[in-house]
């Protein structure tokens, strides 16, 4: 008897979900035809960053919001408090159940999200990854902030300039399994080996994109390598924590620090001489482009095939490259001369 009633409840729940799903599909169709008739658009776009409270993603999501407002769609932002491989799954499932038209994700893990993302795509949601990609078969399009080669090269160039192209350097990364950081680090090593024989990479440590951990790892790096000439931190949390430690240590001005950072986090450290120059793309434009890409997919203007072109508001026209990837542009260098022009 109990088993039966449980079964009944499960069946009822399933039916209810199915009905809601159908209802959602129906309203989407209505929205699409309305959008076709008038200037308005009801494309729903949901941003799912690695975690909330991260200024980098807040800026990219703000860019996405600006784009969605331009084309008159509905914007939403959801995400976990802390970045973890499976923390995003429940948000993907919810977005799929709501039947959003485009889900814009920065993946915490290349494979852990695949089942959920593919389930969402089967339900009709277009999946765009940005910042951190998943395996290509789990998404429709990846918006690349810059090529990995470009990012690795700008960091190698900056550290080489700052330490006179010779000496020991170390890398302070994010989590040990962070997709993009690991790809960049491999390319940094190749670039160093090929073009900078006098620079020696002595250590790579992981600050887990946590202020305290990154701060403590920086202290350990300096203690462990007395001859260290420079630190490269290809993560915004890492570079600002390292700058905080360096700015109060005897190594300030002696050990160079560069990498990828945001102007707001680094402003004080550039002004007090701890940091000379660091780089980043513009995350606001990254989010903006991702939202337009999501809309182009949802409208059926593009399918994500190589050679497809679409308009992204005031950024102009973009072309889809190999592996369904769209490239934003080259990294930008921030230093004392230009940092006050940026606020993110």
């Amino acid at each position: 008897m109990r088993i039966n009633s449980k079964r009944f409840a499960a069946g009822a729940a399933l039916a209810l979900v199915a009905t809601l799903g159908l209802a959602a599909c129906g309203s989407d169709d209505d929205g699409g035809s309305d959008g076709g008739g008038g200037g308005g658009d009801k494309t729903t776009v949901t941003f799912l960053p690695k975690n909330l409270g991260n200024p980098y993603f807040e800026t990219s999501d703000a860019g996405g919001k600006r784009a969605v407002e331009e084309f008159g769609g509905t914007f939403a932002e959801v995400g976990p408090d802390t970045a973890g491989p499976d923390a995003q799954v429940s948000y993907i499932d919810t977005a799929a159940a709501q039947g959003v038209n485009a889900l814009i994700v920065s993946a915490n893990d290349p494979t852990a999200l695949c089942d959920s993302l593919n389930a969402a795509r089967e339900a009709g949601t277009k999946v765009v990854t940005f910042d951190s990609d998943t395996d290509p078969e789990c998404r429709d399009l990846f918006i690349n902030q810059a090529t990995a080669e470009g990012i690795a090269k700008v960091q190698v160039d900056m550290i080489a300039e700052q330490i006179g192209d010779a000496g020991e350097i170390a890398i302070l990364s994010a989590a040990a399994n962070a997709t993009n950081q690991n790809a960049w680090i491999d390319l940094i090593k190749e670039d160093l080996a090929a073009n900078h024989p006098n620079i020696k990479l002595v250590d790579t440590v992981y600050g887990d994109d946590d202020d305290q951990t990154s701060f403590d790892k920086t202290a350990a790096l300096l203690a462990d390598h007395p001859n260290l000439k420079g630190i490269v931190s290809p993560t915004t949390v890492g570079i600002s924590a390292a700058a905080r430690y360096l700015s109060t240590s005897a190594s300030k001005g002696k050990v160079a620090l560069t990498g990828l950072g945001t102007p707001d986090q680094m402003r004080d450290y550039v002004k007090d001489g701890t940091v000379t120059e660091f780089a980043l793309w513009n995350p606001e434009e990254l989010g903006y482009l991702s939202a337009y890409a999501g809309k182009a997919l949802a409208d059926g203007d593009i399918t994500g095939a190589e050679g497809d072109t679409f308009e992204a508001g005031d950024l102009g026209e973009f072309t889809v490259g190999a592996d369904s990837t769209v490239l934003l542009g080259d990294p930008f260098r921030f230093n004392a001369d230009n940092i006050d022009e940026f606020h993110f």
Partner: protein
Amino acid sequence: MSTSTLAPSQESPATRALHTVLRSRELAIVIVLGLIIVLATARRSSFVLSADGWRDTLLAPSILLLLAVGQMVVVVTRNVDLSVGSTLGITAYVTGKIFVANPDISVVVVFLAGLAVGAVIGAINGVLVTLFKVPALVITLGTMYVLRGALTHEVGSDRMNAQDYPAHFERLGTQQVLTIPVLTIIALVVVAAVGYYLHTARGGRELYAIGSDPDAADLYGLPAGRRVLGAFVLCGALAGLAGVFSAARYATAFSGTGSGIELQAVAAVVIGGVAIFGGSGTVWGAAIGAFLLVTINRALPILGISEFWQGAVVGALIIGSIVLDRVLSIRRTHQLVEARDHA
């Protein structure tokens, strides 16, 4: 019938004091701590002997010291407070908010604000635990998530950066008096004051009694509810102070600041020999436990142990502490039984 009273000690006070130290549970972790510092310094003299190394050795544990002392006072009453990490995050962020609104405000006012915010949160925990008689583990697990959620909701996109904290406050994060960092001095004063209170004051001893046997304490007429509430208020206030410390040291705060540090505080207390079921342990032990935990994390990379093993080392330390406590407690029981049988 036979009497089970022990004869008064025949030893002089000096030898007794020496024996107390030698037999004390805290000595074991002091030795481990000393060993780690010596090994790391032998490998890299700058670990302690450089200006930065000396400062970091003393400064790095200051935040966890505060949390461990607060946690110890709660644990000794057979409770636990898992919300301290969320409290720390809230006050670190609130500190930034205060400075953004009023950059010239006195640092003392900010410290008091941190204490007050933390004390209010502690009072909420304490009232929930004593009023509803629900295990503190459950209540504070709940408030941990509620507070973290509220903080994330409130903070959302925002983040406190170095440019938001005034320079004089950031300097406090590394300021030293006679080479001792100011934050460490404050933390040690807290350790001494709380340790003295728990060791000598009636209220302090009652906390042990309550944790040792809550029913007996109740029957005896001890004001258990009031004492436990007080322990939670103190724990919350110290977590609030730790949040201000965190802001001064790291010059940053966001919605995730301090998440996970509550478990480090519990670990420090356990490593320090405080019984997780209450009734025994010392503030000194918890403080040394915190010192050891932080120093181990700093020393392992220098000793050439991969950082991926650091969690395992801390885990082994916790389990080792529990085993040591168990062995000591069995030996003590045997000694007492023998003493009784001989009498």
